[in-house]
């Protein structure tokens, strides 16, 4: 559950995620994810479509989604890459857009594109269970299960690693055939749960 104090300013939140509020609030749907016309077209094409509403007013507004945990990410100029499914709420000062992740997104179940949030302010990311933040350094790359990956910040390069061998082919795999490898420097957010992915079955 996320509580947002508003004093005349606005936040962008996922469509229908308000659970309660005190004071005066107005809810307005932002067409096409709130990035203007170009952003809308980009979102339609990339499948990173999200329905976003703008909440404006005075008082406290509470947001929640399907009993998931909420993680606050503070951005000061850097970019946060997050799946649109996991983005609950952003401050109005943050800019959202789509970015291409390459082919490795497909088998991880995250699609070819992901949402990029940049600017200064707070973003709320949902996770199924409390999220863990893992640091990636120059000499220590990180491998993450695609279904447990939530978001990342910093200058990270992601690539898909496969641990599939002949045992996987005959149906005796370890259940961890595909991983995302992060190299570079930054932080990766991981949830203690796995969503269903194509790679998750092998």
């Amino acid at each position, binding site marked *: 559950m996320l509580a947002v104090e508003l004093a005349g300013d606005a936040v962008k939140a996922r*469509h229908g995620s308000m*659970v309660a*509020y005190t004071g005066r609030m107005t*809810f307005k*749907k932002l067409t096409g994810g709130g990035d203007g016309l170009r952003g809308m077209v980009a979102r339609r094409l990339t499948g990173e479509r999200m329905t976003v509403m703008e909440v404006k007013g005075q008082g406290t507004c*509470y947001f*929640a989604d*399907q*009993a*998931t945990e909420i993680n606050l990410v503070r951005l000061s100029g850097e970019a946060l890459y997050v799946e649109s499914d996991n983005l609950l709420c952003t401050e109005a000062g943050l800019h959202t857009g789509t970015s291409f992740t390459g082919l490795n997104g497909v088998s991880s179940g995250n699609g070819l594109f992901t949402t990029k949030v940049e600017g200064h302010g707070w973003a709320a990311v949902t996770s199924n269970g409390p999220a863990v933040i893992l640091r990636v350094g120059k000499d220590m790359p990180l491998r993450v299960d695609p279904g447990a990956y939530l978001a990342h910040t910093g200058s990270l390069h992601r690539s898909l690693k496969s641990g599939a061998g002949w045992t996987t082919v005959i149906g005796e795999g370890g259940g961890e055939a595909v991983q995302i490898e992060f190299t570079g420097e930054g932080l990766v957010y991981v949830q203690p749960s796995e969503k269903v992915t194509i790679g998750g079955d092998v």
Partner: protein
Amino acid sequence: MGFTRINGKLVEARVVPGQRLFSQRGAMIAYTGDVRFTPNITGGQGGVMSMIGRRVANEDTPLMTVEGHGRVMFGHGGHHVQVIDLVGDTLFVEADRLLAFEGTLRQSTVFLGSQGGVMGMVRGQVSGQGLFTTRLEGHGSVAVMAHGGVFELPITPDRPVHVDPQAYVAHRGEVRNKLSTAIGWREMIGRGSGEAFQLELSGQGAVYVQASEEKL
């Protein structure tokens, strides 16, 4: 007596001779001591008339009476459990959200239409409460189930609270609720913000809200 919270999804109750507990049938997880569970055919307190009332009102969740001497743990369906202590005030909650409550509380069924007439009935339909709800009053503890964590929002006369009907769990105290709509031309052309209906609660008391928009 009362309920002790073990974790977010389990509560423990101490049972002593002469005091009864009511719980949803099948919600017992474990117990120690000499405890008897008897199905409560009438579905709660009162006699046959109350039973008929509950059947008609569709607030007849199967209950069992817990008696004896020992400790009992309750939990159900992995739902989050919230313990609410009543000290002479009233709690309004849906019968299917009731996990367990102490026998010292008086249980009754109320017609939502009695609070706001036709709009009360409409409100019950929109919020998924139906036309009737369960009222508990007196001194004692209640364990209520919800999907996701629950938090309590105080309501004061100068600070009404608006709640998404799907996230509403229960409310206590002298609270008037009415359905407020924020339907404009945007909703008509399918461009709504998804927050067209809200329950507006005003008065003196508190409302319990769950961190999810899913009903039980």
